[in-house]
């Protein structure tokens, strides 16, 4: 019975699980890769001079920090993506509850789904992580940042660690999402899924405010503290604020949604859609904001430092600084696109109805693009605020300036990338969903 429920869920919505699968695969790669790189450095057989050089490069320290960061980041994002894909099954869960599945059975079925996705993802992710770590170490030795004796040695802990993180986070995320639909009476659940709860949860908002405030306070403390430790703690500042922004996501999206009304009828429809779907979309907001904030903090720290010192850093230093961040940003961006795709594919029926009452494909697409733009604006605004709160005190501590500096060229590239990502996660699946005539889509998906 459990296997049946799991199998049905996987078959009915393959995409809802393909997204988390890709995310978890990358998560496992990231965690095991960071672990592999770190252990390769500490375990490398080097002569004392090379060992000394390696320690002085502070790269082992940085790698160890990467391990910690990757664990938190992947656990957070894996849990989040799994939550949003289980949340989509609310109606199905209500149905199986109505025909006699106990809450316990539903939880077991959901847990099984999480494991079915996470275990193969981790198994595939670990070798990918090994390749990633190998390439990173090769890049570091190639740029002369670390002695050439440091080569990649797979860590024995990589597989259990990757499995532990992905399966654990996936299970927690899935069970959190299943908590409500598994517990409420089936009748209530059936009506509730027809009408998503509109009022924003008070608890959710409070948690969001607490996390954001905590992040801001932490950032101020960092500014007054030891600049050497700033890098590690600023990561947690940022993480706290991003998660906080995720909790506040529905509120933020509803604040931005009315902007869409500037675009006439199409925009008004987009604004209404955003308001009712703010909760599902805020699942994509966290990784998006993380990616934007991460990239911005790293780039702004670098460009401002160059601007203040007036001299460009060595290419090796730039490569080291950017390579690690690039991996995180890519991971968060992929997770964001996955979540956007999941949200959009859940709306196939709605798109078909819109077309049936007279929207051409182009017009229906315009609504989707309009919504995507509002999500982008929200993510950019929140990401920028988070990045600035993190980076400004840090810059003051390090360089004694309150003015972050970002050249127009890099700003433009960043903006274009974010817009491109959001469009990729919305327009492409919308086009796929609208390939069939509207009447057919409705007949298949009533």
């Amino acid at each position: 019975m459990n296997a049946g429920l799991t199998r049905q869920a996987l078959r009915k919505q393959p995409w809802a699980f393909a997204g988390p699968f890709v995310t978890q695969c990358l998560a496992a790669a990231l965690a095991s890769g960071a672990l592999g790189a770190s252990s390769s450095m500490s375990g490398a057989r080097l002569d004392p001079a090379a060992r000394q050089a390696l320690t002085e490069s502070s790269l082992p320290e940085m790698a160890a920090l990467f391990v910690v960061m990757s664990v938190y980041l992947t656990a957070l994002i894996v849990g989040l993506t799994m939550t949003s894909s289980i949340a989509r099954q609310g109606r199905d869960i209500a149905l199986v509850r109505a025909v006699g599945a106990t809450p316990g059975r539903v939880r077991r079925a959901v847990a099984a789904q999480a494991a079915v996705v996470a275990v193969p993802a981790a198994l595939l992710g670990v070798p990918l992580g090994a390749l990633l770590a190998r390439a990173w170490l090769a890049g570091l030795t190639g740029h002369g940042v670390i002695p050439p004796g440091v080569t990649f040695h797979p860590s024995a802990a990589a597989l259990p660690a990757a499995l532990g993180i992905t399966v654990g986070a996936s299970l927690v995320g899935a069970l959190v999402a299943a908590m409500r639909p598994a517990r409420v009476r089936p009748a209530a659940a059936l009506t509730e899924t027809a009408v998503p709860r509109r009022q924003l949860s008070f608890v959710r908002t409070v948690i969001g405010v607490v996390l954001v405030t905590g992040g801001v306070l932490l950032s101020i403390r960092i500014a007054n503290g030891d600049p050497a430790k700033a890098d590690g703690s600023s990561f947690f500042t940022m993480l706290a604020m991003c998660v906080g922004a995720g909790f506040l996501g529905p509120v933020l999206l509803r604040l931005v949604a009315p902007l869409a009304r500037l675009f006439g009828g199409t925009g008004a429809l987009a604004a209404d859609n955003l308001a009712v779907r703010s909760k599902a979309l805020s699942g994509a907001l966290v990784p998006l904001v993380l990616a934007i904030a991460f990239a911005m903090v790293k780039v702004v720290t670098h460009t401002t430092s160059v601007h203040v010192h007036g001299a460009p850093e060595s290419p090796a230093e730039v490569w080291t600084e950017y390579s690690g961040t690039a991996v995180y940003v890519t991971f968060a961006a992929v997770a964001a696109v996955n979540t956007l795709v999941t949200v959009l594919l859940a709306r196939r029926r709605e798109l078909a109805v819109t077309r049936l009452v007279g929207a051409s494909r182009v017009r229906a697409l315009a609504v989707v693009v309009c919504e995507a733009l509002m999500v982008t604006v929200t993510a950019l605004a929140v990401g920028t605020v988070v990045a600035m709160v993190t980076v400004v005190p840090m810059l003051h501590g390090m360089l004694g300036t309150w003015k972050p500096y970002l050249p127009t060229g890099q700003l433009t590239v960043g903006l274009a990338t974010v817009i491109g990502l959001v469009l990729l996660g919305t327009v492409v699946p919308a086009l796929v969903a609208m390939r069939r005539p509207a009447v057919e889509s409705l007949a298949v998906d009533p």
Partner: protein
Amino acid sequence: MDNVVELDGVTRIYGSRRRPVAALRSVSLVVSAGTFVAVMGATGSGKSTLLQCAAGLDRPTSGRVRLVGQDVTRMREGALTRLRRDRVGFVFQSYNLLSELTVRQNVLLPRRLGGPRPRPLDEVLAEVGLSGLAGRPVGELSGGQRQRVAIARALAGRPAVVFADEPTGALDPATGGQVLRLFRSGVDRSRVTVVMVTHDPMAAAWSDRLILLRDGEVVADGPTPDPTTIAERLAATVSDPVVAR
């Protein structure tokens, strides 16, 4: 322009070339403005295909369809969509509303998609008996209320024709009667044309003209008789031995 819907030798074949299934076989008929037409027949007789071809939701394999005077058979998808949006209303058994949005947002949906300026919302909602519910999410309404929202959406833009596919299929007889009364008054008061597919003789009895389909062909077409006669004729078309072709 008196003929709102014209079908000329419309054939629609589904399935592969090797195993074709004809849902409609050379159907020709004309519906003039301000009539309420009921289309009946057994399951699989081609009623829904007839409706979809007539409404420009599906394209016939051969033959010609004219909708409000325009040949839709060769019309491009964009122009066809605009024609549907501006001149045609739809009502389905499964409502096909956006259940997360409110009554107002659903009724105004065609307008937001660039459709014609609708009649005042209050007037339309009063007509279908939904005054005061404009701000309610559709998902919170009963089946009968939802179907009335769908009718309000269909009628708000002053369409020339409304196509209804089993509009009372999911409703009890009393609620279904309210829905049919709305179609009837639309036809009588505003000269809207209604083409309705149904399997219920009581529902068909509200119409002016009854078309019976069997096996993709029109077997009877004339003024609508009383429900008992409709039921008898329908039973006759169903129980007649179907000649293998």
